[in-house]
């Protein structure tokens, strides 16, 4: 990065660190922070959408749909979510390959599961085995993101379902008295009012989502945990590092990053809650009104 980095062995401590912390692998390490932020940026809205569909489905009057919604919402209860993460990553991959296999190779006659192997025809592999490395990485990443979205969608469905039930019944009855259909009541009365009730649960979910991001490492993505281990270790498969085992310091840096991130989120979410409570018929809104008067 800097010109004086040409011969690191001649440098003092401070410039040595300046060189060390800006070398190529560290740039990859910093990029992996973006990977995490990208995961949050995609997962949060997608999970919210899944949650909304799940919660709306649980309210449906058509029994099979409501069962499916209830199954989805209750799926995360009782079972550790990390089990879901490990499960979905393989299951989604196999499901995609299986579907692709049915389309690409309809005249394939061997069984797909042969003992301990999962065999699909070459053309059905996702991504194709001839694809470049980055395609594999991007595919893995999006499988991981989708897995996060499914699991957090189930949490969000729980929160939103509770929020929908918290909207005062009188509001809905009024809508019915005006002759609105169920659909109109849902979109015009229920949905606009439910957010203030959903906000505490959703804020909580956001904090949990932040704290779940290191699990990307378990799903085989080269995220910040992966790089912290690689860079901190004294010996790795690929490079030799001119320092002893520094993993402790790298993980300490990650800890500080997460503490800062959750702290900032907390402050921002508190501000949003205050803004949204304004003028609402909830305890928070009433308290604001009293304070102003």
């Amino acid at each position, binding site marked *: 990065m800097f010109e004086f980095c040409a011969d690191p062995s001649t440098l003092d401590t401070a410039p040595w660190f300046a060189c060390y912390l800006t070398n190529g692998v560290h740039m990859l390490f910093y990029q992996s922070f973006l990977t995490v932020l990208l995961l949050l940026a995609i997962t949060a809205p997608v999970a919210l959408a899944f949650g909304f569909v799940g919660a709306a489905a649980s309210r449906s009057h058509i029994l099979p749909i409501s069962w499916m919604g209830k199954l989805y919402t209750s799926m995360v209860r009782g079972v550790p979510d990390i089990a879901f993460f*490990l499960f979905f990553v393989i299951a989604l991959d196999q499901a995609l390959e299986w579907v692709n296999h049915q389309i690409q190779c309809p005249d394939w006659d061997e069984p797909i599961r042969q003992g301990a192997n999962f065999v699909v025809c070459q053309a059905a592999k996702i991504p194709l085995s001839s694809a470049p490395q980055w395609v594999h990485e991007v595919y893995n990443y999006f499988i991981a993101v989708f897995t996060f979205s499914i699991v957090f969608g189930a949490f969000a469905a729980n929160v939103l379902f509770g929020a929908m039930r918290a909207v005062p019944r009188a509001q809905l009855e009024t809508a019915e008295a005006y002759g609105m259909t169920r659909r109109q009541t849902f979109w015009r009365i229920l949905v606009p009012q439910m957010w203030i009730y959903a906000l505490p649960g959703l804020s909580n979910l956001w904090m949990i989502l932040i704290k779940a991001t290191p699990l990307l490492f378990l799903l085989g993505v080269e995220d910040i945990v992966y790089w912290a281990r690689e860079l901190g270790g004294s010996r790795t498969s690929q490079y030799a590092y001119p320092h002893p085992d520094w993993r402790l310091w790298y993980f300490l840096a990650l800890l500080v990053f997460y503490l800062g991130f959750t702290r900032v989120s907390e402050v921002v979410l508190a501000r949003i809650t205050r803004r949204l409570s304004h003028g609402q018929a909830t305890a928070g809104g009433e308290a604001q009104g009293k304070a102003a008067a």
Partner: protein
Amino acid sequence: MSCWETVQAYAFRSLGFGERLLPRGEISLCEQVTLIGSGMIWNIYFGVLALFFGFFFAVTLAVAKNSQAKWARKPAEWFIFVFRGSPLFIQFFLAYFALVRLPEEIGTLDISWLTDPFAKAWLGALIVLFLNTAAYAGEIFYGALRSIPKGDLEAADAYGMSGFKRFRRVVYPTMLRLAWPAYTNEAIFLFHATTLVYFSGFPAFRQQGDALYYASYFADRTFNPFVPYPIVAIFFIILTLIVITVFSLINRRLNRHLPAERRARVRYRPNLIR
């Protein structure tokens, strides 16, 4: 091997008893259920002990955080902030490397006999889980302390109670009663969090791991996730139901003096990962 023989061979495999080699090649359903069940021993071990010791520390933390004195309040606030604000996964890694590095750092003095057990999962991970659950439960108890009805405290004052007596007879029972439903959820999450132990820095000594460790082993071997993970799920649902039952019984005892309609119910509200 018949199923009963499999159970005899693998029931305590996770503790190092019985057959040493894990099943290979064709893996039967019975072998999967037995070994995953064997792994559950570790989940229960971590969960029960961390919960038990964590409870006492959590009460201390809550009282400290609620205290007027700055020297008691500040450390408690920081402790709770650090453990609740960071991922458990990172905490495990950090603790592991700290415990592995510590004996190497202090090179002149050989203290590895002292720190060795800490670098193993059975003690190292237990301590991390203990500190983590203490922080989460401490925050729950702190919230309960803040919402003790004013009348209860005034009544205690009127009876001339003060100091420890007032805490033991009025503050503590009310706090526990108010916090119990939330604490039940915390207990369930803690049991779920124990599945992270063998996926963070702590190595599984001689392949003696927890339920999820064996499940992922089978999923890797058979390349079929549709059998081992549902087995884990069923085991954990049973465990969750047991926890809810036990905590509901305690809850009933804590609320026994109240009229029926004012009793708080234990309701399971999932909000997971640390």
